[in-house]
């Protein structure tokens, strides 16, 4: 597969430490398109080895708006269902640039390892020096070792190593959409995580037409009024959570967007410095970046201040535990009590719908109503919208905001980008075959 692709599927066997590459053929793309269409196929192919499959959306890393996302597909050790977790921030596109469209990790390693994926090379590396350490320390250690602060990591912390049902796979320093306990799965495989860095390029079949259409779609998106807003507070207020902006105001520092995403879906809270400071911080990381808006609200509802909420979110990210589960299940109301309770929490977090998509992503449209009213209709729409976003690699929250991103124009761009004829019929078939 020459276009929108690195042409390679990586298969790593942790049992034997063998690394193999398979070609990503055009026929596979014509049948499964990409993203979770392909990771579901690969999961099924290797399911005897309890695989973790990482994949990038077909449009990820291009000029299509919000083409920021990759995915992890695996069986949740908590729900027992095949589930799909979006990979966000700058990490999603880095996976594709690092030289592989899809990565299958089979089996378990006899000792802790991490996978260093760079420029089409996959190294199984000894994780003895970082096993037992938190997500932040591990990321810092790998960035220092490799010599590049732009290294993107997917790591577990002590929660995953200790087998917590609420263990998250974290991205760089931050919490992730993982509500499936994938962190526990990584830990059970003695897999500390991944480090990605790539300086690759992606070829496009019809580059001029692709960029032109992308920019036309982006222009349409920009005409939608919601792009005047920024950050997580307006999203929460659109979902009916009043007063979030005022509550967060004293510690709000900045908003940031994922790769080529027109809306800033992340907000940075400054905890250890004045958020109004207009200079480079003296601290390496004085705050926390929040993408998990529902966890934030849960802590607010417990009566925590925004400052204390930021401190707990930071502690969760370092420990590698799902902050939403902590907020919902810990039964504590102070920072000290909450952070001391990480290993003791128990209970169940409901996964909506068929259970294959993460409730980190709100289950309703945001800012625009998409002409939906009935709750069953909304849930069916949400599941389809998540599936489509994760086939093409579109930021899953942004896809809930933006009616201008349609299945039709995603297919159009996919066809322009690959030179293949990808139709609505193919997409419908792929969605039908995604396990849930």
């Amino acid at each position, binding site marked *: 597969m020459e276009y929108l692709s690195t042409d390679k599927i990586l298969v790593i066997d942790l049992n034997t430490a063998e690394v193999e590459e398979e070609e990503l053929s055009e026929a596979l793309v014509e049948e499964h398109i990409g993203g979770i269409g392909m990771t579901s196929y690969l999961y099924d192919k290797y399911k005897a080895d309890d695989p973790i499959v990482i994949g990038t959306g077909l449009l990820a890393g291009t000029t299509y708006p919000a083409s920021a996302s990759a995915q992890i597909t695996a069986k949740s050790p908590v729900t027992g269902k095949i589930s799909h977790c979006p990979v966000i921030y700058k990490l999603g596109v880095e996976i594709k640039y690092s030289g592989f469209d899809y990565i299958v990790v089979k089996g378990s390693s006899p000792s802790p390892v991490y996978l260093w994926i*760079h*420029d*089409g090379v996959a190294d199984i590396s000894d994780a003895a020096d970082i096993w037992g350490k938190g997500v932040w320390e591990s990321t810092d250690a790998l960035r*220092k070792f*490799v*010599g590049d602060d732009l*290294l993107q990591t997917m790591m577990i912390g002590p929660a995953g190593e200790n087998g917590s049902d609420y263990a998250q796979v974290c991205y760089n320093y931050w919490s992730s959409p993982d509500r499936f306990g994938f962190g526990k799965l990584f830990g059970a495989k003695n897999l500390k995580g991944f480090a990605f860095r790539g300086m690759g390029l992606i070829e496009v079949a019809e580059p001029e037409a692709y960029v032109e259409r992308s920019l036309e779609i982006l222009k349409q998106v920009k005409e939608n009024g919601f792009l005047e807003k920024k950050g997580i507070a307006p999203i929460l207020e659109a979902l009916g959570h009043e007063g979030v902006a005022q509550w967060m105001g004293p510690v709000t520092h900045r908003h940031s967007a994922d790769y080529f995403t027109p809306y800033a879906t992340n907000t940075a809270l400054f905890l250890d410095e004045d958020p109004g400071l207009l200079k480079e911080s003296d601290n390496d990381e004085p705050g926390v970046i929040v993408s998990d808006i529902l966890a934030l609200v849960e802590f607010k509802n417990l009566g925590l201040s925004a400052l204390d909420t930021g401190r707990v979110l930071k502690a969760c990210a370092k420990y590698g535990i799902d902050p939403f589960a902590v907020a919902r299940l810990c039964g504590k109301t102070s920072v000290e009590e909450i952070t001391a309770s990480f290993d003791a929490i128990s209970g169940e977090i409901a996964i909506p719908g068929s259970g294959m998509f993460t409730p980190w992503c709100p289950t309703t449209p945001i800012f625009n109503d998409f002409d939906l009213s009935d709750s069953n209709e909304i849930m069916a729409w949400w599941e389809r919208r998540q599936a489509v976003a994760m086939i093409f690699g579109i930021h899953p929250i942004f896809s809930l905001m933006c009616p201008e991103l349609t299945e039709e124009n995603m297919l159009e761009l996919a066809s322009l980008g690959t030179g293949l004829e990808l139709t609505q019929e193919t997409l419908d078939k792929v969605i039908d075959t995604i396990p849930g």
Partner: protein
Amino acid sequence: MNSLKIGIYAGSGTSHSWLWFVDLFEKAGFYDLVFLDEASVRNNHIKFLDVLVISGGDTFAVAQSLGREGGLNIKSFVEQGGVYMGSCAGAYLPMNSSKKPLDQFNFVDVKITNLSKTLPVAEISTCKFCTSYGCDFVFHPVREAVRLKTTCFYRNDAALEFAAPLYGGPGMKAADPSWVLAVYEGFTPRTTFLASQKIARKTLVGNGAVVRVPFKKGCFYLFGPHLEHPKFERANQFIIDSIILETGKDKAYDKSDHGMKGFANKHGIYGKQARELLLTLRRELSNSRIVAGSLEFLPIHWLIGQKVYEPQKIRVYLESMWKRLKTLEKNTGLIIDPESYTRIKTAVGNLTIELRRIKQQVDNHLESLETAITIFDLLHVLSICFFDLYFSNRFSELAKDPEQAAFKAS
């Protein structure tokens, strides 16, 4: 395919500009390239060449490395019909000089116009403005693209005009005006003036930019600007035309060791061993590119000898190898001698280690010059081995070498 044998000096004292010659020759279809370090020049491996190229860098360091034997071998090479092409530092090298160690290379009576006992006032404060030259200074009045015009001694029907970038090369006055093939005609909107325009004009305009000095059966070509720079196609063509012109004139000297005989000491590696070597190269070049890219964000440079080296120069070496890796990876077997096999694997692994070391030194505000010297030495060793491997395989493939055909069949 042209089977001219061209040697490119890539040893101590060179900067990255010899890589531009590699691009130029590959594009022109000259695949029989030999990459030389100082030992190979001193040991007279150059006697089998048609053309010897010495590009930019630190003239004093190049002269020091090549030494008296190197000088004598170059002289003998040209006397017997070889073509010497010197660009920038390679142009200064064979000019008459009383300064040690340049006095081992007193071959041509050409004077430097940008040499002064008193330094002109610099318009822009930069470490690239001048270098000491004994008790004098070689100063560089401009940088970047300048305009050149050929003289009637190059072609007497119509003059050619083209641009080429000048970084530290000389303006030249030749003892015999007929040696001057092109002069500095003027400047371009991209020219950066490091001295006043008046001084720049006086120093360069009308003076020699390309000089050809006949030397018994051979000749010295001296290029002030970098005509080999990949963004200057017309200047590139001037070099290629000159090579074709010269080597077509006189092929009488001893070429008995040319062509496939050069592979006599080279062995083939097959299957798993070849794949492992290619994977090692990919892995370590990638590791090196990543940390080298990261160094480019840092405000650091190193003064090595008379030259200033920025982190960006590291990536020029790495990218020139990286972009050729895919072509090499198509081979199922590789032509490489056992010594080079060991050397290339060691050098590429050590390069990652040293680059990661220097990144930590810079991050921690520690002294890093020694590590930088090691890194640039490693880059020379690695790139010589790499290009030797690359062009051996390309040349043998295109010459339909039976050994290589056997590899492919296997």
